[in-house]
Every structure is written in structure tokens, then in C-alpha cells.
């Protein structure tokens, strides 16, 4: 560890990075501490000055801030603004930071006071509608996934350190799913958002015979109109589709349109 970082004999600056979390399960940060085989190489690329989950020291002198989680409280807006001010590059880490993530499911309810009462009973906490980071600050880079895929983060961090352009796959999960030689889950009678969801996860779920839930948000071309037709052809009802599309927040606007089209109060939900 330590020493001058070089690439092909060219000295490179080791960026100072901080990891932060807003409302989240901190699972994405935990992912970063996984994969022991490459952990030391990963830690050698950067100088970590703030990482609550991994070390005791705290510093605010960082170049890159990785922020996990969504914004659900007023004080988080202030914290996020402060992080943005300190960082040269702000990275939204994981689905919560990018789209609101699982947390934003509560936005489905119109009466948030009712939600608070259902969850916290007589012990209310301050909590508002869920927002992704980009609703409040400029986000320079998004790393998708719930959780993020460590291999992808390693690639992105390497690119950042050597100064390469960071690129995400533009195509949907189907590409990687076929490359893994899977049989299409629709053919097996299962629902899957793979045809519209951005790849990069190496078809993590579908290769384990679990339909995609769209945690990485829409692919550059996400033909949602056609997806609706496919769902119909394969016999999935609107509410089943909406459960998927609304789960991580990446398809929020399309889900809203689809729900409005339904023009009936969704069932199975205690909406006051």
C-alpha cells in the first residue's frame, strides 16, 4: 500500500475519496468491502478519508464523494449540499441514490402522514417524500444497482483514476442474459424487466432464474410501450407489472402513466 501510484511509468494522483450514506441499508457500501481477492488492490487505488462503515477516522478533504441512499429528511438535504460543496466529483452510489430505490415505494401513497403512522405508530420521526440525489445537487456519475456490482465499481474507479471515460452499457439486460446462455424467463412463464432495464449487472438475477426487477433503471432505449404489450400477451395484469416498475424508482414516470391509464384504485392497498 502507499507509495507513488503509477500506470505505465506515468505517476498518477491517488484520489481522496469519501463514502457517505443517506437513507439506505448501506448494502452498497458493504459490497465495496466484499470481494477480498481484489480488496487490497482496490484500496491501493484510492485514499479513503471518510468511510463510516469501514473505518473510524473522518475527514472532509475528499475529491470524490460516493453517496449511497436517497433523500427522505430535511437534514439530509443539508448534509448532501455540504458533501457536494467539498467534492470535485459526486457519485450517486446505487439505486436509492440514483432513483430513490426501494425507499421511494412510499411515494406511492398519497397521504404520507398515514404512512408514518402505519410504520412508526406513536413514535413519529421527521420524514418526507423520497427523492434521488439529483433532485437537490448536481450528480456527476451514477452507479446503478441494488446492490451495486463490485466488479463494475472496480472498473469505474480504475477508469476514474487513470482518466478514462466512464461508460455504462446502453443496452438492456437481455444482451447479457443471452450471453449467459439463459432461456428467456418469459418463455418459462415468468415476468422480467430485462428487455427495458440497463445492463451492466451481467444478468445477475435472470441467470439465477429470477426475473429482473429493474433496479438499474431504464436502458438508453427502453421500449416501455412494447413491454406493456408483451406483458399483456404473456398474461400479466397491470398491478403485477406496476409492482415491478415501481419497485426501485427508475421507471417512475412510466409507472405513473400506466397507473393513470388503469383509472381505478389499485387493489390490495390500504389507501386512505
Amino acid at each position, binding site marked *: 500500500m502507499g507509495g507513488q501510484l*503509477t500506470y505505465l511509468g506515468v505517476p498518477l494522483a491517488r484520489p481522496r475519496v469519501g463514502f457517505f450514506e443517506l437513507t439506505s441499508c448501506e448494502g452498497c457500501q458493504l459490497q465495496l468491502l466484499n470481494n477480498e481477492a481484489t480488496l487490497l488492490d482496490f484500496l491501493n487505488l484510492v485514499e479513503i478519508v471518510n468511510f463510516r462503515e469501514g473505518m473510524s477516522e473522518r475527514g472532509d478533504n475528499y475529491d470524490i464523494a460516493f453517496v449511497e441512499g436517497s433523500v427522505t429528511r430535511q437534514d439530509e438535504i443539508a448534509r448532501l449540499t455540504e458533501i457536494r460543496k467539498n467534492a470535485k466529483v459526486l457519485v450517486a452510489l446505487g439505486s436509492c441514490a440514483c432513483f430513490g430505490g426501494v425507499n421511494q415505494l412510499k411515494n406511492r401513497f398519497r397521504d404520507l402522514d398515514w404512512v408514518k403512522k402505519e410504520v412508526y405508530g406513536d413514535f413519529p420521526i421527521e420524514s418526507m417524500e423520497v427523492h434521488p440525489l439529483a433532485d437537490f445537487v448536481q450528480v456527476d456519475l451514477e452507479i446503478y444497482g441494488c446492490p451495486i456490482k463490485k466488479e463494475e465499481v472496480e472498473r469505474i474507479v480504475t477508469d476514474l483514476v487513470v482518466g478514462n471515460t466512464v461508460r455504462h452499457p446502453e443496452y438492456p439486460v437481455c*444482451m447479457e442474459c443471452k*450471453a449467459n446462455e439463459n432461456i428467456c424467463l418469459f418463455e418459462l412463464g415468468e415476468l422480467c424487466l430485462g428487455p427495458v432495464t440497463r445492463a451492466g449487472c451481467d444478468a445477475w438475477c435472470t441467470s439465477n432464474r429470477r426475473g429482473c426487477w429493474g433496479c438499474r433503471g431504464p436502458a438508453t432505449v427502453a421500449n416501455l410501450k412494447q413491454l406493456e404489450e408483451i406483458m399483456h400477451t404473456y398474461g400479466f395484469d397491470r398491478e403485477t407489472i406496476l409492482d415491478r416498475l415501481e419497485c426501485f424508482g427508475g421507471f417512475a414516470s412510466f409507472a405513473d402513466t400506466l397507473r393513470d391509464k388503469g383509472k381505478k384504485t389499485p387493489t390490495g392497498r390500504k389507501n386512505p
Partner: protein
Amino acid sequence: MIFKVFKKEELARLHELLAVNIMVGPVARGNDRNGKPLYDFEVVSDFAELALDYTQTVHSPKRFVLPYRETLSTFTLNPNGWEKQVDLNVRHPLVFFGMHACDINALNKLDLVLAKSTYPNPYYLGKRKNLFILGLSCNPEPQCFCRSMGTDSASHGFDLFLTDLGGKYFAEILSATAFDLLSQISCQEPSSKDHTLYKHLTNEKSKRYTTSVDTSDLTKILDLEFASKAWDYWGEKCLSCGTCANVCPTCYCYGVEEQIDLDLRHAGKTRSLHSCNLIDFAKVAGGHNFRPESATRLKYRYYHKHRGFVEAFEEPLCVGCGRCGAACLADITPPEVIASVRGKM
């Protein structure tokens, strides 16, 4: 060509003789949601596991000679430069036990570009030259339009081709390896009765196709219908997901990416099969995209297969296996697309 016949029971013996090698063959992979059996090519050593009466495999055999992802080279980096290591990833010969005519023809088409061109692809060539292919007759399925593509029978590109005559197999021998192999099992010269039966069966088969594509003047018609509304119709349906190209036995377009390892001391170059339907397929340095619309990308897929390739090689880059249409969630099938461009829909 040399012909032989042998009793069906001899096939297991033939398999045993070949099984000193790594064997790839059709195996059952459960049923789809409607109870229809699914098949795929897999490495399989047990004769009993082979599903030789298979209909169509979900994926094509292409990946055994042209993997979806392949490391082309690796690099060891040092302060003064780098050392390059190239591995063609050819490990061992491979025996294909039971390949249908369409897929044999598909490999022949890949050869035109990857093996017989001015700059052959060594990664492909190494694997392709290391194949022993045992072909097997098939029964036309509803999605098959190989007859329209002239690929319903194979005249080359295999070692041995077996046609099911009922109690015995009619064997076409194309290689010395296959000839030597057959000398080790109990074979007979085909009788005139066998000839008659073979001709009868192939004639019968050609009548059982339910799907066809009119290819007459197709290159010209595609030229004429460059601005056809049909492209927009299909383009609107297209998911731009690349599934058609991935299951296609003849699609070979690829992208190459270089990636530096996390330790900054190693790097690698990887080729991944791509699809012309993907949004970034025609994206170039600087960010300009020559084909930003789905309809244009879909159109050029058909132009490559049924116009450009025909002009270059006198044959389409399609064997009519129908996998793309069967796999397409948006139900885009070549017979329908071509009929619509012809104005027949």
C-alpha cells in the same frame, strides 16, 4: 460423396468411438410455459442424455466457435511499456453430435467472413478447424423457412450426415475421419431400395414446410423500399435488446473493449458479440450516432442479411432457422418483415 447405411443400434457405438473427445449435442432443457419442450446444445458425454429428436435449440451452435465474450489478448504493463500475450483459446477438438442442416450451413456462412476472407480470424479459425460435425436430418417446424434460404440441406461443412430412414440411418460421408470411423461399426452399402426411400423422405420433407419467404428480386426490392413505412412499423415494436442477433447462428458483429486491471499492472482486450439493433451500435468517437432510431437499425439488420451479404457472396446471411422470430418478445419475424416490405401484409 460416399454413402453408407447402418442400423440405428449402431449409433451408440459410433458415439462411443467419438466420445474420447469433448462432445457437444442437443439436450432437453425442460418445457416452456405452454409445455413445449426446449432444447439447447451443451457439452454432454452420455449418449442417453442426447435428445436426437430435438426440434430447434434455443441458442445456436455459434458460441462454440464464436463465443459471446472472448479475451483476445492480455497485457503485462511495466514502467517502460507492455508485453502482449495472445491466446486463441483453442483447447481441444470438439465433436458436434447431431447438428441440423441449417446450423451446418450457418457455420459455412460464418466461414465466408471469418475463415475465407482476406484476413481470417485466427480465434474463429482455430476452433472451427478443430470440429468434427455429425449432421442429422430434421423435421420442419412452424418457424422454419430454411427451404426459402436454400439451407434445408447441407452439401458441405460436415464430416458425416445422417438421415433417419426409419430402422436405419443413411450416411453421407465427407471426411476421411468419418470414413475411418464408419469402418469400425457395422455398415452396409445402400441398396436401391434405400436410395428410393431416401429420395422419398427428402421429397416428403420439402412438402411439410408451412413458412416461406419470397426471395425473388429481394435485393432490388429492399433497395426500392428503403423509405417504406414497414420499417417504422417494426421499428416501433423493436426492443433494441439484441436478442435476435444473440440467438442467430450467423450474426457475427462484435465490439472490442480494453480494460485495465485494478492493480494497474495488467490489462486485457475482450471481444463481445454485439447487435446492430443496439442503440450504440453505430455510435462513433465524438458521440455522433449514425442510427439513433430503432427503425433504421432494424432496417440495416435486414439489409446486411438479405442485401449486402447477397451482393458480396451470392447468398443471404440467414439460414431460415427462425430462432430470432421465436426469441423476439415483440414477435418480429423475418417472414413477416420481408412480406411487409414487399407490400404483402
